[in-house]
Every structure is written in structure tokens, then in C-alpha cells.
């Protein structure tokens, strides 16, 4: 494809469908820059600190990434449709509190109710956006405070602790030597990667975000797709809430406060366009790994948390800067 462009430079001048290989190459590099960036961070941190490179530390990073990834994966689907889900952080708290309250009646029931509470919030979000025609930002912003308020009400504002060992095992036990939250993250990524890249639903998600009108004309049930992505995001946040309640050994209403912004940051760093229709799920995954690698590596190097905030903010802006340029070339 690129060789044809080299042989026929006139095609570019004539505004043809082909672009010169230099441009293709540049775009390829830009699109894959985050993968290289993650690698560079890992290598640099490993050189600067022997502690960073230990297997135990890799586990620490992946454990921190596990719940952040669940949120970012759900956020990816929502943002690909051109929406946004600001309620996921509060859902984490709500689901954690619900599961902690239900757990005396059984661990399985607690998990089901925790995840179910997230799914329910997602269903309300999705319905309000698709059927109610309320902008996603507004719906999920409202839901963010509703879910937090609900969690505070049912927990009476105090942590629900004294959880049984069976529940605590979710986040603190391993299977084949790998901690369960990391397994959950990998499985969720694999399944959702398949769903997005290999199913009709996945194609529809891109179509709805790329051009909703065209999608409707093409016979895609856009409302159903929209509702479904919010349900997915809510359910994944519900899972993250259960894992976190198990991890911190208590259901706490405020546990997920601010996580919605972390998930959006990961998605943006991963090169997924905030206007929808463009981006890859692997990007969001790498976005999460970059954030957690930075958190961990900068901590190990004893960099002040104030500087860490500046570095992370700059990274987000840089990622969008690149994204805007890629989008401009594409259009």
C-alpha cells in the first residue's frame, strides 16, 4: 500500500485516497506511541531503581491497574459511542456498600447484588440518554451524585466492615499464583477486545459514535446500542466495586470518588477520541498501565506527589494534542 504511494506521488497532490508513505509512517508511529511510551517508562524506571523491576512490584502495579482497567474498559465503549460516563466512580462505592451489606446472606449473592446495582445504574443512565435524549454528560453527572448519595444513605455514611473471609478472598487470594483481580482484568480485556473487534455489536458501537445518523439509516438500532454500552460500563464498575470492597476489607461509600476521571484519563491517553467512533480498546488498557506504572515508578523514586500530579496532567494534554492531529489528518 505504501509502495504504491511512492510510485505515484501525484495521487497525493490530486487529493486521492492514498497518502505518501512518510505520512503513513508518521501516523503509524503516532498511533503506536503509547506502546513505546509504556516500554520507555518501564525501562527507565527499571534502570533507575532495582526495586521497580522486581516481579513482586509488577504484581503491585497490575493489582493497582486491575480495578482501574475494569472502569476504563467500560468507559471505552461509552466514549466510542460519543458519550461519557461520569457515574462509574460513585457506582464503585455503591456496589461495594451493597455487596458488604448483603454478604451476611452469602458471598455469591453479595457479588450478584453488587454487580447488579452497577448494572441497574447503567440501565438508568442508558435509558435516559437513548430514550430520554438527555445529554450523557448531564445524565451521568446527575447519577454520580445520586449513586454516591444512595451509597451514603444505605451505609449510614460509615464503613461496612467485618466482612467474611470468603468475600475477602476475592481480592486477596490467588489462582495458579496470580491474584484474582489481575485474572479478572485479563479476562475482561480479552472478552471485550473480542466483542469490540469481532462482533456486530462492536461494529455498531463504532458506527453509532462515528456518525449516528448514518448508523440509523443503515438500520442499526442506535438506542439499543447506546443503552447497552452504559449497562456494560455500570456492570464493570459494579465488579470493580466488589473487588475494591474486598481489597480494602470494607464497603465504603466514597471509595471510588474521582475514579471516573482516572478512567477517562486512561482512555484519552490510550488515543481514543472523546468525540467517539475512533480508537482501540488496547489503547485504553495501555493507558491504564501507563498511569499505574507512573504512579508506582514515581513513588519508588520518591518524587513528590505534587510533581506527580503535574506530570500526569501534562501527559493527558499531550495525548489529546496528538489525537487532535491524527483526527485532522484523517478528515
Amino acid at each position, binding site marked *: 500500500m505504501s509502495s504504491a504511494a511512492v510510485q505515484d506521488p501525484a495521487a497525493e497532490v490530486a487529493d486521492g485516497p492514498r497518502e505518501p508513505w512518510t505520512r503513513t509512517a508518521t501516523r503509524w508511529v503516532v498511533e*503506536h506511541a503509547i*506502546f513505546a511510551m*509504556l*516500554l520507555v517508562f*518501564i*525501562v527507565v524506571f*527499571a534502570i533507575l531503581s*532495582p*526495586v*521497580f*523491576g*522486581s*516481579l*513482586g*512490584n*509488577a*504484581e*503491585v502495579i497490575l*493489582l*493497582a491497574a486491575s*480495578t482501574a482497567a475494569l472502569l476504563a474498559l467500560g468507559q471505552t465503549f461509552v466514549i466510542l459511542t460519543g458519550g461519557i460516563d461520569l457515574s462509574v466512580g460513585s457506582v464503585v462505592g455503591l456496589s461495594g456498600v451493597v455487596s458488604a451489606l448483603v454478604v451476611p446472606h452469602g458471598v455469591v449473592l453479595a457479588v450478584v447484588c453488587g454487580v447488579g446495582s452497577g448494572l441497574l445504574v447503567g440501565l438508568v443512565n442508558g435509558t435516559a440518554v437513548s430514550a430520554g435524549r438527555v445529554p450523557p454528560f448531564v445524565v451521568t453527572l446527575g447519577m454520580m451524585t445520586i449513586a454516591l448519595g444512595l451509597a451514603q444513605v444505605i451505609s449510614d*455514611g*460509615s*464503613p461496612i*466492615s467485618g466482612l467474611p473471609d470468603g468475600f*475477602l478472598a476475592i481480592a*486477596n487470594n490467588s489462582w495458579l499464583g496470580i491474584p484474582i483481580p489481575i485474572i479478572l482484568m485479563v479476562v475482561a480485556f480479552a472478552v471485550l*477486545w473480542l466483542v*469490540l*473487534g469481532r462482533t456486530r455489536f462492536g461494529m455498531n458501537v463504532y458506527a453509532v459514535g462515528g456518525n449516528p445518523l448514518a448508523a440509523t439509516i443503515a438500520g442499526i438500532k442506535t438506542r439499543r446500542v447506546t443503552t447497552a454500552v452504559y449497562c456494560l460500563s455500570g456492570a464493570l464498575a459494579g465488579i470493580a466495586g466488589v473487588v*475494591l470492597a474486598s*481489597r*480494602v*476489607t*470494607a464497603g*465504603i461509600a*466514597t*471509595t471510588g*470518588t*474521582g475514579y471516573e476521571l482516572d478512567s477517562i484519563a486512561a482512555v484519552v491517553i490510550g488515543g481514543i477520541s472523546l468525540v467517539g467512533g475512533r480508537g*482501540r480498546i*488496547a*489503547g485504553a*488498557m*495501555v493507558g491504564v498501565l501507563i498511569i499505574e506504572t507512573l*504512579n*508506582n515508578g514515581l*513513588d*519508588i523514586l*520518591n518524587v*513528590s*506527589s*505534587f510533581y506527580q500530579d503535574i506530570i500526569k496532567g501534562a501527559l493527558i494534554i499531550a495525548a489529546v494534542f496528538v489525537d487532535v492531529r491524527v483526527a485532522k489528518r484523517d478528515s
Partner: protein
Amino acid sequence: MTGRRTTSRLVAVLAALALTLTGCSRLSSHQGGGAAHPVIGFTVYNMTSYITLGKAGVDREAQALGAQVLWRTANNDVNNQVSQLQSFINQGVDAIVIAPVNAATLKPEIEQARAKGIPVFITNLTLDQPMSGMTQSYVGADDVAAGEQEMRAMAQSLGGKGNIVLLQGPLGGSGEIDRTKGVLQELAKYPGIHLLAQQTADWDRNEAYNVMNNWLSAFGTKIDAVVSENDDMAIGSLRSLATRGLVGKTKVVGIDGLQDALDRVRSGEMIATNLQNAPLQLGMAVAVAVRGVRGQAYPKEALMTMPLVTKSNVDVIYDRLYTHRDAYFQTLPQLIESNLSSGDYGRQSLTDPAS
């Protein structure tokens, strides 16, 4: 097509990550520096103005004792604090000091640390049982005594009669529970003083401003005094009183001894505050942890009484903590050693008489 390419790239990256990590794992074993130069992992709930002030004391004390402090802030997120503890355990620090985000958490991490032989110390805020029983020591303020002390100061200022309102910290936190307990315990001794209302303003200036506005609408000038469980809320209530011209008429008392509050005690806007000396407290937590690593004696609980700051002693305290801070910090390690030996943990200066 691009999806597949991306995935193969991701696989390559993860493979490289795994290789890098396993390749380096042999280099890192135990990072702790042993008894001579102990490495102390210190995780705090958030960089509040109080903790930021205290960190200077931590750095000074660590320097004096030849210890290295790995400082982490959890941004009020338990999940962050859990990760930070896992990281400390993984790198094999010599001791861990925690200012906990939430009293009901951290059991698995404290168990892991103990299993690895890393002693855990708590400071500033407490942990519930069974976690606190699994830790070595607690260094912090006596919040019950502080509540009693601020209520006593206010009762005396009111001459034993009048109406008060109480601004509380976030409900359920150890600071709020203990300070409220102290205030109510002391209040019971004054039958002439009535509690009109009590509410949380979450340690926050703006929330206290709003709550106070509501109370002024409800009770007006019937309110003779505001008892606040920290200085930030006391200052917030003063902003509200100012809009009605009540500053100086309605009496206000707080806890913490923030710079802003000391200014207001000096100007008479607040009748008093209680000094929670952050550098002394967090610095002592480091000293206790180092003693633990070195096998020296340390207290199971170092409860510090907060001195009452009124117009009569505010200048001395302001000068010590803010104007000539460097000089105070020079003597801080010596003061901490002296307090740990005498058991008078809250003594503020080597020149002060023992309390």
C-alpha cells in the same frame, strides 16, 4: 486489521515487560538499610495543611536519626494506601508508619507486613480493632482531652451560661468521635450552657460557612458561641458571622493551631485554639519507628496533650512554629528524645516547664 496489529503489539509489549521484570528481579532483594540507616515507609491519608506542616518534622527527624523516609500520600483513597503498603512490603522496608485513610481497613496488608517481619506504626488517626492490636504503637493527639479543653475554655469565657452550637468533623472518623466525646463530657458539667444544634461540616471552611449561615437564620443572635472541632470550620463560621457583624460578639473556639487560627486568636476573633503540633507529632512517629527497628524501648501509645493557645501565649507559639521555625526545628530531635524518655509526649519546647 488494525485491531489485530494492535493486539500483536500489545502482546509484544507485555512480553517485553515480563522479560524486563524477570531480568531485573534478581537485583532487588531487600532494600531496607538495617538498624544503622533504617528505611521507613510513611503513608499518609492526604497532603492536608496539617500533614504538609508535619512532613517538615518528619524530614528533620529522619535526618537526625540517619533514617531514610519513603513518603507516600494516598489522596484520601484507601485503594491507593493499600497499593502503597504492598509496594513497601515488596521492597522490604525496615518499618512502616501509617496515617490511615479509613479506620476500618488495611487488615490484609498489616498481616502481610507482620508475616515479613516489618513492624507497623500508626500516627495521627487511629485504626479500629483488630488492626490496631496488630500494630506496634500509636503516636497521636489526645482528641478527647482536646475536646474537653476547648469546651472548658469556652465555658469559662461564657461565665458558665449561654447557648452554643457545635461544628463536628466527618461523622464516624476517630477525630470527630473523640473530640465530640470530649466536648459533650465537659459540657455536662455546665448546666447553664445549652447546646442549640450540632452538625458536621467535614473539617471544611466553606461547609462550615454554609452550616453557620443556616444556624444564624434559625437562631439569630441567640447563639452566644461556636465550638468547632477544628480551626478550618471555626474560620468558616467566622466568615458567616462577619456578614452579620457578629465577629467578636459571638465567641469562637477551635482545635489544631493553624497559622490562620493563631492570627485570629491574636486579633481576638477567636477566644482560643488547641495546638496540635504537626512536626512534633509526625516527627515522633518516625522516632518511635526507628527505635522499633533498632530494638530500643518505645511507648505502646504516645498520646500528646494539646496546649491551649490563648491571647496570652499565642505570640510565643506563633514565633516558634512560623517566624523562627528553623531554630525550633534545630532542637526538634532533641525535644522528641526528651519527651520519649520523660513520657510527657506533648511537651512543646525544651524550655517549657513539664506539664
